[in-house]
């Protein structure tokens, strides 16, 4: 993967991009949130201290999914009343982006897709409701307003000024998983499946005191 290097407009430190389509990144020295327009980096804000988090995954964790290697390039951290979860931004070897969601060590891997059918309106959606996505029946399993709690690393879009985001989680009877993010004018559909930790063959994980990997 060719790495592009730029300098942080705030502190001058080198900022490398693992992901050629990255639109946003954070400077790991001065914690500036940087947005890339063409070749210029613009500072749009500063990352607040991320709340403590116990995901075993970290930036630069590597793994394999569907016979393709990926590296973790960034993340978005969300918070809701039942806890926090991470959406880890994965960059596959072919440059495609994916998302590994980690909620209390339950993992789901999804990609942003264009829905063939129009997505349901957020108003009137209820838990237990079923509708078809991509030819398969999905059931709404969670309907949560989450707080955007922070970002880290490279992301494929600008994502730094959110407050509350409405998420709808859906699952199918075959173990497929979908999330609809209603924070944009057109809702974003992430489609994927629940995955087993061991199946991802992850390396470069965080260490936990007293626990063998």
């Amino acid at each position, binding site marked *: 993967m060719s790495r592009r290097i730029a300098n942080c407009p705030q502190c001058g430190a080198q900022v490398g991009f693992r992901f050629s389509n990255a639109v946003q990144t954070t400077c790991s020295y001065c914690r500036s949130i940087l947005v890339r327009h063409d070749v210029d980096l613009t500072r749009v804000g500063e990352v607040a201290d991320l709340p403590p988090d116990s995901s075993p995954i970290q930036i630069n964790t590597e793994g394999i999914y569907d016979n393709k290697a990926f590296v973790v390039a960034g993340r978005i951290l969300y918070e809701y009343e039942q806890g926090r979860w991470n959406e880890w931004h994965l960059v596959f070897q072919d440059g495609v982006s994916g998302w590994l969601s980690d909620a209390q060590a339950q993992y789901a891997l999804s990609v942003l897709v264009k829905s063939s059918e129009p997505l349901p309106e957020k108003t009137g959606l209820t838990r237990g409701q079923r509708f078809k996505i991509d030819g398969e029946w999905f059931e709404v399993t969670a309907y949560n307003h989450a707080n955007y709690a922070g970002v880290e690393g490279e992301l494929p879009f600008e994502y730094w000024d959110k407050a509350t985001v409405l998420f709808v989680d859906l699952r199918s009877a075959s173990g497929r998983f979908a999330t609809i993010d209603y924070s944009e004018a057109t809702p974003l559909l992430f489609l994927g499946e629940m995955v087993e930790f061991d199946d991802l063959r992850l390396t470069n994980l965080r260490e936990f005191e007293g*626990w063998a990997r």
Partner: protein
Amino acid sequence: MSETAPPPAGKVRTLNCPNCGGSVTLRGFAHSLTVVCVQCLSVLDAKSPSLQVLQTFQARERVHPLIPLGTRGKLHGTQYEVIGFQTRQIMVEMIPYEWREYLLFNPYKGFRYLAEYDGHWNDVKPIKGVPEVTSGGKPEARWLGEKYRHFQSARAETTYVMGEFPWQVRVGESAQASDFVAPPRMLSQEVSEGEVNWSLGEYMEGAQIWQNFQLPGAPPPARGIYANQPSPFADRTKSAWMTCLWLMAGLFALLMLASMFMRQEEVFRQKYTYSAASRVEASHVTSEFELKGRTSNVEVNIATDLDNDSAYFNLALINAASGQAYDFGREVSYYHGRDSDGNWKEGRAVDSVIVPTIPAGRYYLRVEPETEPNPAAFKLARTIRYEIWLRRDVPINLFFFLAAGLLLIPPVIVTLRRAQFEQARWAESGHAGDDEEGKDDD
């Protein structure tokens, strides 16, 4: 790749309970939302730096978990630590049923539980999807190609909590719980505000858990039959029937083989007429015939034209050389008619008997028919025509049927015990009154 400094490693933290000052250990890292002080049982907010008190309860007696908090053990090759404990109960017809849940944690693999009721254990993991549920009188849940039958639905109330949980827990909160079983597995659905959660449990022996978690002593003995306890008879029924089938086939083959080596030879056949009216001595002897081969049986057959009548035959098989006689008697009767229940029949006009172990030699038969005075038949001529024929060295089918009958006993017993087991299982369910149809697995 080292632009990002390595984040601080996950560490077990120890804080003080703001209610009683006792020490509170946080083992679930940042996953824990609530932690319950093991000393004063206050429910604390694990996210607040000073552990704000969310709920205090002293309402009930202290419960001692069978697996202490902090114990580690292996399940499916992964080491887990017990970090939380809760008791929950359902009310069925005003009777509380309480079970215990041990929350297990591994920082890489996440959470699972062990649930225990009356010495029965389940290894439970949240599942990744939504099983399809069919409604109706006997609802079913389908998950990954397997059918689970609805066992029970009830409101499950949390009655006691200790340790840490990655979600908000309070004593007194409740969820609508439904269990579906396909022994040894159980699918459970829990619905509480805003969320539906499914989990899949697998029945475990207490002894296995004691071994995996290296616990002292012995697990509490399991009482009764649990919803998803595997039936010890389920596999045995099939194997018992298979064994029976094979033995039957063997027996049948043996019978066929034996009959191939038997003479089954007709040695004598003759027709006679007996008239009861005549005062002539009815006793007569047949011509001589030869019984060949090894010492074996002789089949004596008598076919009569008796019709609503009976006759008694005194018979003797006599060795022509030695005069040794084998005496025996046969009653032949055949009655039929019609009454309020319809047509009926009793007896047969043909008789057959096997005289065992007759050595080879020349023999003859002495035959003496007798009839009882029969008012109905008396008016008639009372003539009985009969035919006698003998066969040497015949296979005895009765042995086969006796042996076959004995072979059927084990599979029938296993099948009955299996049915009893299933009946006991479902007697504890919400379908205790339903008919038993369709409750068998195959």
